């Protein structure tokens, strides 16, 4: 029998060994839940919101967004000042002398150039290359390099270069010859753009434009001796090796387990950082993440996606209802949502926060003349698209399915999210009706549109079964059910639900192998074109196959317009054309992001709909570190709100969080 105990003893030994060699680090000043780990810390290759959130702690661009200002102002970052030429094409940045990397070496203009060149190299495969292609000659450089790489790697013909080193040398030379980037001196960087790009400074605050520490990258990215293709080795983004120029440095990262960042002592603005350390456990299950929050193991949930978040938001609404007068009074004063929570009596229900986000949930119509199976596509006709858009009960989706107080969407761009931009009204849908009579009017108007399009009796003469394509999970099925029911009930058409795996769904969208499909879009930068470009005929994200010469011309005209207010009006006209006439997609609602944190304990988070939290602004109240004062939202500072590429007079953006429609849905 004792021999039969052998496996047990062996197993016990294994457990003991593993547990003893594996100790957790001490608790950090802030423990943040950021989903189930990041994909990458390489600023030029990242695209995910959780990745970008960590990147903003590690890197600092030439400029930053003041996320606590109502206008999301552009403020100096690594550059202390900049100049813009009068034609809006040339930007000159002056780096601050005290800007340093986390190892103490000075931050140089060439480090930015290195990062931008990486983004433009086909060898790196930056997925956000489009942003950097705003710089003059970027596309030429990419094409040149890609063409030469193909020649170097093909088996036949004479090679254009003797070896990889010669090819790489020429690439470095060619970059400065073709691309509008000039390192005037160690701390002066001159950039020339392809065309005036009013949001270029906002792009400079985006992580694709982050600098990289050249001495480190040069060790990990070396040209192949034969082909000259950059041999990319992982490893430079690991703790102990990564050199960063932001408020924090990386001191620990165990994949899908935890990450730890500590204050970067060499950061030029380190005195303002009120956190010594941040740890980020990786938790796959959203429910477990909430449990971790409730047991105090996590202080701040940067995204709360548990299925029952609707119930928690309901509790928050009930809490607001108990204090209705105070809340109304504080809203009147223009206080932001987190500040209001802070001033209300202590209550566990306070910890959940739904904040408007820079994104929209919508349904795509396939706009091509023919369906995937070759039949004529009725949705090619804008009248049909408008009719289908009108009968959707968006309010029911928001209130009964989503339940986190997201505003109903009439247009693509979330209202008041881009300073200086006032979007169009869009058209009324079923949910805008307040009385049964009004509902009837809208349904009749939609049926009239269908009749005009040639389907007077859609129940019998609408030629196809309308399929709604959506991916599994996240409750998309429930939304599709509401819409399908609206369409069959009010228009009489037959509908079919098609649920697919995410990857298959994505493939169908790309091949436009669908009739109608769910979709969502988050804006990346503070300009209407971050949404409006989607509908351009040649855009790589135009999943609808929508093509309108008139619309493309409107975007092109706005691109040439130098006067900012007029340009914004032109873009608003373009959006009006889309959502009052063309309706290539139906906006359903604007997203909200749900956070969990105790407002009495944590301050420095923004309620701005641009959805960009800057963790280095967080101060944990009561821990004795930092100023220990609440950091509420503030008005734009005059001379800082940048809407037109140059520091301009600002401060006129409407407050975005005083509207009862947004926010906690109260």
């Amino acid at each position, binding site marked *: 029998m004792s021999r039969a105990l052998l496996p047990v003893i062996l197993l016990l030994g294994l457990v003991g060994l593993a547990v003893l060699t594996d100790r957790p680090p001490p608790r950090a000043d802030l423990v943040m839940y950021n989903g189930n780990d990041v994909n990458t810390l390489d600023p030029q290759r990242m695209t995910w919101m959780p990745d970008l959130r960590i990147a903003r702690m590690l890197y600092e661009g030439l400029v930053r967004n003041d996320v606590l200002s109502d206008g999301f102002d552009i403020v100096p970052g690594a550059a202390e000042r900049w100049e813009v030429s009068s034609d809006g094409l040339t930007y000159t940045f002056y780096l601050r002398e005290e800007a340093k990397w986390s190892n103490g070496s000075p931050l140089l203009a060439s480090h930015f150039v290195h990062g931008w060149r990486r983004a433009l190299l086909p060898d790196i495969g930056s997925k956000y290359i489009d942003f950097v292609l705003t710089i003059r000659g970027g596309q030429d450089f990419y094409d040149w390099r890609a063409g030469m790489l193909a020649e170097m790697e093909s088996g036949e013909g004479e090679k254009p270069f003797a070896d990889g080193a010669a090819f790489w040398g020429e690439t470095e030379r060619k970059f400065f010859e073709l691309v509008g980037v000039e390192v005037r001196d160690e701390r002066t960087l001159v950039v020339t753009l392809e065309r005036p790009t009013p949001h270029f400074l906002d792009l400079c605050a985006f992580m694709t434009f982050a600098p990289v520490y050249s001495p480190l990258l040069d060790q990990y990215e070396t040209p192949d001796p034969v082909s000259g293709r950059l041999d990319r080795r992982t490893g430079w983004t690991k703790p102990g090796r990564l050199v960063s120029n932001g408020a924090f440095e990386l001191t620990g990262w165990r994949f899908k387990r935890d990450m730890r960042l500590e204050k970067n002592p060499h950061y030029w603005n380190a005195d303002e950082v009120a956190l010594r350390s941040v740890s980020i456990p990786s938790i796959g299950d959203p429910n477990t993440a909430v449990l971790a929050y409730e047991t105090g193991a996590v202080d701040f949930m940067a995204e709360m996606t548990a299925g029952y978040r609707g119930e928690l938001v309901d509790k928050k609404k009930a809490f607001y209802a108990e204090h209705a007068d105070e809340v109304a009074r504080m809203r009147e004063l223009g206080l932001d949502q987190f500040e209001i929570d802070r001033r209300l009596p202590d209550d566990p229900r306070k910890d959940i926060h739904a904040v408007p986000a820079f994104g929209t949930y919508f349904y795509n119509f396939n706009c091509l003349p023919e369906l995937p199976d070759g039949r004529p596509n009725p949705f090619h006709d804008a009248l049909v698209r408008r009719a289908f858009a009108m009968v959707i009960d968006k309010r029911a989706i928001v209130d009964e399915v989503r339940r986190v107080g997201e505003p109903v969407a009439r247009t693509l761009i979330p209202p008041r999210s881009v300073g200086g931009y006032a979007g169009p009204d869009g058209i009324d849908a079923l949910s805008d009706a307040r009385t049964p009579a009004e509902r009837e009017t809208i349904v009749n108007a939609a049926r009239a549109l269908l009749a005009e399009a040639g389907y007077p009796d859609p129940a019998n003469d609408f030629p196809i079964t309308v399929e709604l394509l959506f991916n599994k999970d996240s409750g998309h099925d429930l939304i599709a059910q509401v819409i399908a029911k609206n369409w069959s009930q009010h228009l009489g058409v037959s509908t079919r639900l098609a649920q697919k795996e995410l990857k*298959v769904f994505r493939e169908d969208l790309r091949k436009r192998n669908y009739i109608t499909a769910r979709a969502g879009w988050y804006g990346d930068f503070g300009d209407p074109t971050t949404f409006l470009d989607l509908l351009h005929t040649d855009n790589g994200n135009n999943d609808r196959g929508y093509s309108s010469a008139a619309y493309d011309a409107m975007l092109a005209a706005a691109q040439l317009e130098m006067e900012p207010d007029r340009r914004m009006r032109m873009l608003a006209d373009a959006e009006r054309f889309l959502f009052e006439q063309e309706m290539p997609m139906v906006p359903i609602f604007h997203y909200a992001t749900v956070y969990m944190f105790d407002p009495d304990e944590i301050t420095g988070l923004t309620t701005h709909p641009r959805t960009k939290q800057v963790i280095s602004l967080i101060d944990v109240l009561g821990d004795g570190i930092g100023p220990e004062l609440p950091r509420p939202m503030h008005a734009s500072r005059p001379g800082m709100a940048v809407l037109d590429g140059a520091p301009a007079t600002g401060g006129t953006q409407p407050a975005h969080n005083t509207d009862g429609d947004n926010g906690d849905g109260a």
Partner: protein
Amino acid sequence: MIGLLLRRLAQLPLIVVVIYTITLMLAWLVPGNPLENPEGRQPPPEVIEQLNRQYNLDSFPRFYFTYLDDASGFSWLRDAASGRLGDAADRAQAEGVAPPERYVFDFGPSLQYDDWNVNEIIAGALPVSVALGAAAMVIALFIGVGAGVVGAMRPNSIADLATLAVALIGISLPSFVIGTVLLLGFALLVPLFPVAAWGTPRSVVLPALTLSLPFAAYIARLTRMGLIESLGADYIRTARAKGVRESRVLLKHALKNAFLPVLSFLGPATALAMTGSFVVERVFAVPGLGQHFVAGVQNKDLFLIMGVVLVFSTMLVLFNLAVDVLYRFVDPRIE
């Protein structure tokens, strides 16, 4: 004995290559491009094309043979023998750059997680899964054998029926239910154990218990059946007749034979437990290997899928072999 070991070890590469071929064919057929974003902004098509070429995703035969070459260690052996490995390292040192990352069994880069290659991912996750799986098997053995003995001592008694019922529940209830209930009970209501903090001895308890229950239930039934059968055998009657104490009859004479089916179950079960359970890992935020099976397929991360599958199949073969060896210790009659 040595012959058996050698024969089985020689079979190992063959089995693994067959599994590799079938899995890669299936994974290749999964629709979608691993380099596209599932949602949101899509990279330009020419960028995708470049990356496809870099990773050999544009040709199945090229991917098949290159990956097999790297993962099997042949590529490393070749370069080591020809001195290329040393040259590259020397050159890197001379130029002051990081040495090329070469692994003997190189599973390649992860397509989804840019900063990690599959070797690093497995090296981080496998020890966690092994610890959790080992702990779960210990618990499963104690609970399972204990319950089986209780049941077999008085078949069809109340105690027997109760353990059978518990075993049935253990098999039937999915672990996300058991796990969530345990978490709510012993982490939130009675805060005995931490949530999402793998790395302390206490953090192993709840996930190991959850993972062990289905195994424990199965072991209990195997033990009970085996014991009831051997308790009716002639040598047991002989033992009782010469006055051996009942507990000794049960534990020394009967259980030894009854344990054999449990032992053969332990091989694959341990391999399964040690290569991670997606559900248990997810509920308890355990950074193990199981999540990578699922995430690999969801993201169509070919390198990651193949890496975890190769590791799992190798472990499965080795654990079965270990059980065969243990068998001979327990029962020397078996050849």
